[in-house]
């Protein structure tokens, strides 16, 4: 007998198929078998009551750091995948800045083997743009693609050489690989540790202007036009970058962009108010209220395609230090939905657009399966309670690290169930396996 799950009574929001209303969703043999107002209930089917909740495609995160191999004290593929499904994410793309970096088949295969053993979220490795992430020679895109990498990136570092970036965009065309870039001109970044503005001036911390990102975004849009390559802009944070992407899309270039929950909701003034909290230190830095507004508008109007968390776990060893010395990054998988839902509650973002930005849009950007509940799609589903109030408790996080700006904070909106390939892999308050 086949494995059947019926999710009943929930509001199905599936932007890819245009569905928004109370429907039953039937999951069978790892696929979405049906979405309808009324469905048969075969005997032996598992029935999940989703009344009062949202039933959406499982979320897809194009930007996470799982730290394995090499920094397992921060996160492993398994613990990261566990945090992912707890946040409603059924697929994640893991960045290659591990130790060693993912520039060879061996590392790609290790990540995939660990992910298969964990059996939680789907884990798609991202390979390096440059060998050793050294910014000099191209990594073996062909072998990385064949091994299962879905994109290439030197994330954590920008590709400073325009010549290398040009060749990467060109060469990646042979494999239809998106070239994902962390945009910062290191000369303009200098020793900066936060956004440059009145807040950095008061704190006496060295600033990084938004233009450090914008000039690289403009450069790479020009190179995307030159090469016809697929450019993906990671964690866009500056108003100027949003303007540049809007213009590039208007001209029909193959450019996609992501934005993080923290860049949509927090500003440099929050860094000042926190009293140098390293839980608010990341790269790119939290920017001005004006930049945040531009990012939210860009997300709402589709200029920015998707939300990606840049989940970047670090231990207290790297974070309980001087702000200047702390490593960049915050965790995000378990808090992304409630944090972004706050934008919906204040009318800055539509509900369907939010779901799309977390599912269909990232699937499209990297040509990944899923992101929809259309019949025949993978049975990757999130059930979300938009009214659930809870405290993000550092002790209860599924990640190995708790370097989150929302540590200890009350949040509204929570994933209650997550299905991957039809299997229940997460249930709030209970360990489903």
């Amino acid at each position, binding site marked *: 007998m086949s494995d059947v799950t019926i999710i009943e009574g929930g509001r199905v929001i599936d932007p890819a198929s245009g569905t928004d209303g109370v429907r039953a969703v039937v999951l069978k043999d790892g696929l979405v078998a049906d979405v309808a107002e009324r469905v048969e209930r075969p005997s032996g089917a598992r029935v999940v009551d989703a009344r009062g909740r949202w039933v959406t495609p499982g979320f897809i995160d194009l930007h996470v750091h799982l730290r394995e191999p090499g920094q397992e004290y921060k996160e492993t593929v398994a613990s990261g995948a566990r945090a992912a499904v707890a946040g409603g994410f059924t697929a994640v793309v893991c960045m290659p800045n591990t130790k060693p970096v993912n520039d060879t088949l061996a590392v790609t295969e290790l990540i995939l083997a660990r992910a298969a053993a964990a059996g939680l979220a789907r884990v798609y490795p991202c390979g390096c743009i440059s060998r050793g992430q050294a910014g000099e020679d191209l990594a073996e895109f062909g072998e990385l693609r064949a091994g299962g990498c879905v994109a290439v990136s030197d994330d954590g570092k920008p590709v400073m050489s325009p010549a290398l970036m040009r060749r990467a965009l060109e060469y990646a065309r042979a494999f239809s690989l998106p070239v994902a870039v962390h945009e910062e001109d290191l000369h303009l970044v200098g020793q900066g540790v936060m956004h*440059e*503005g*009145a*807040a*950095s*001036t*008061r*704190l*006496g*911390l*060295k*600033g990084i*202007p938004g233009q450090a990102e914008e000039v690289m975004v403009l450069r790479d849009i020009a190179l995307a036009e030159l090469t016809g390559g697929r450019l993906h802009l990671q964690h866009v944070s500056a108003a100027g970058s949003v303007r540049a992407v809007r213009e590039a899309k208007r001209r029909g270039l193959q450019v996609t962009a992501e934005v993080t929950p923290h860049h949509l909701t927090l500003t440099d003034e929050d860094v000042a108010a926190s*009293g*140098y909290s390293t839980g608010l230190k990341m790269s790119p830095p939290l920017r001005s209220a004006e930049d945040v507004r531009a990012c939210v508008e860009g997300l709402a109007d589709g200029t920015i395609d998707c939300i990606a968390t840049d989940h970047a776990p670090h231990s207290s060893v790297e974070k*309980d*230090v*001087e*702000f*200047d*010395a702390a490593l960049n990054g915050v965790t995000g998988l378990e808090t992304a939905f409630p944090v972004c839902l706050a934008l919906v509650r204040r009318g800055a973002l539509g509900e369907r657009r939010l779901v799309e930005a977390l599912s269909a849009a990232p699937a499209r950007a990297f040509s990944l399966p899923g992101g929809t509940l259309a019949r025949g799609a993978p049975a990757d589903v999130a059930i979300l309670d938009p009214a659930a109030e809870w405290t993000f408790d550092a002790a209860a996080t599924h990640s190995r690290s708790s370097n989150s700006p929302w540590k200890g904070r009350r949040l509204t909106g929570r994933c209650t169930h997550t299905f991957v390939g039809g299997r229940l892999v997460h249930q709030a308050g209970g360990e489903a396996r």
Partner: protein
Amino acid sequence: MIGRQKHCIALEDFSREEILQVLDLAVSMKEVLRRPIKKVPSLRGKSVVNLFFEASTRTRSSFEIAAKTLSADCLNWTSASSSVTKGETLIDTARNLEAMRPDVLVIRHSAGGAPRLVADHVGCAVVSAGDGAHEHPSQGLLDCFTVRERLGTLEGKTLAIVGDVSHSRVARSDLHAFPKLGARVRLCGPPTMMPSGVEKLGCTVHTDLRAAVEGADAVIMLRIQHERIGDPLIPNTREYSKLWGLNARKAADWLKPGALVLHPGPINRGVELSPEVADGPASVILDQVQNGVAVRMAILYLLAGGDAAEAKA
């Protein structure tokens, strides 16, 4: 306590009353320094630890003299390198020192926010002796003290701060303190040395030295650090000195009679200040040094558990 402040880390957090509490007590402390026997028993049995991660003989000595004049025990803990490179974290270092039960921990560190981080992890009072480009609160207070002592009040006065404001913790502390006491602040220097959004702190920003110092009641000339030249913030000290340095001729032509010239030291003679101005009648630079001890005595006294009324008696 200084008013509601358990620590002295940032004048941004201080109210006008809290600043005045320190300045008024420092007047009494300065009396002590003028006595033949420069010692009072006010902090006998209390201890002060100077934790310096940046070399600064003058500030450390000033805190040390302040502590000893009040009869506190004083321990100097100097670390040439930052805790990060040494392997021990700042929090561990601070906790180790705290185990010696000091009443006040004075900390100088190259990273902005370091005293705050320490204060969050220790039980004793923390005094910043300068953190990165953030603040140098005792310097800001002694600048206020010095100008107030000479001019009688800061109310309605105009202060010009000239130089590399972007890297200056002194400028930031002055910028928070002087306006709270009724003074207006003008900043002046090359645009490369003006930090972003600084005008939002309630000052005017000038590039022309004459416009900044004309009519000012006091001028603080900041030290130009030679490592800034290659940054590159300025072409060289020659051009800087020509455009933003204060020499005898500019002082005579542009400063109003009775205007004061301050400098947090150490001076680059011939760069930001010519020797004639540094040693001239307008200069109160040596007053600043003595007032620094008095102000630091007041800070240590209040934070180590002294009572302001008792000290004056």
